[in-house]
């Protein structure tokens, strides 16, 4: 049944939710299907707490001058515009 994943995620209208719920009570194969989706969604959700480490520390991503007086440019490669960081900000991206 096509509505099962959206049902498991609670994305359907109230009427649809009721319909699917009723169907699941009477149809074993759809019920099992719903269980599989439930498991998959739980696993996907758990990925939130599995994180990657940036290869470069953000501290090392900066380019340009690090003079404490000159404002400097942090590369916004691909973002089009470089981000201008005021002098005071320069400290921030150094490594601890």
């Amino acid at each position: 049944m096509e509505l099962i994943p959206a049902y498991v995620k609670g994305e359907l209208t109230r009427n649809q939710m009721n319909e699917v719920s009723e169907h699941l009570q009477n149809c074993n194969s759809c019920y099992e299907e719903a269980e599989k989706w439930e498991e998959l969604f739980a696993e996907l959700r758990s990925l939130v707490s599995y994180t990657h480490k940036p290869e470069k520390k953000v501290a090392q991503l900066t380019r340009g001058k690090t003079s404490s007086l000159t404002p400097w440019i942090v590369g916004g490669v691909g973002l089009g515009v470089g981000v201008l960081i005021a002098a005071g900000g320069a400290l921030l991206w150094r490594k601890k």
Partner: protein
Amino acid sequence: MKVEHVLIEKVKRGDPKAFQELFSRFERDIYTLAYRLLGNREDAEDVTQEVAWILWSKIKSFRNESSLSTWLYRVTANTALQLLRKKRKIIYVEPSAHTAEDMHLMLEMAVMDLQENQRTLIVLRDIYNFPMKEIARMLDISEENVRVQLHRARKALRKRLEGGENGGMQRSSGTNTSLRKGRADEKSNE
């Protein structure tokens, strides 16, 4: 949480050390979301950098009514999607040197292996739990369209995972860095 609020207040007053500490709490989360949306490290690092700047420059407008992580996830997703749109034609997913080690890694690899628009939807909705409305807004498509495409994406993911048992996952691309389980209290995003 309380410590975080203290940090936020300090950052609002322009304390760079507090900023560094605050940002380091979220750096991996920001980077990971960006990586999952963009599929390569360099772009994810650029986005992380950009989000650092946004956090520093916009923190005064952050109100404590939502959690900072929710706010940062939203900013990160928007920034990454903006980049994705600009680079649409040349986006590639880095091939991974890893083989699937465990369920989480294998699942992530399957997600990363989806075509771009499907990956985007799974990441935003099923991993990060953004509301449907917000996803529609972020991608500038109708909610109905989100529903339809999300359904396809979910089915495609299931198919990949089920093919995985007989080696279907072999050519998966995905993480070059290993996954780290975060602290339980970092988990919430809503």
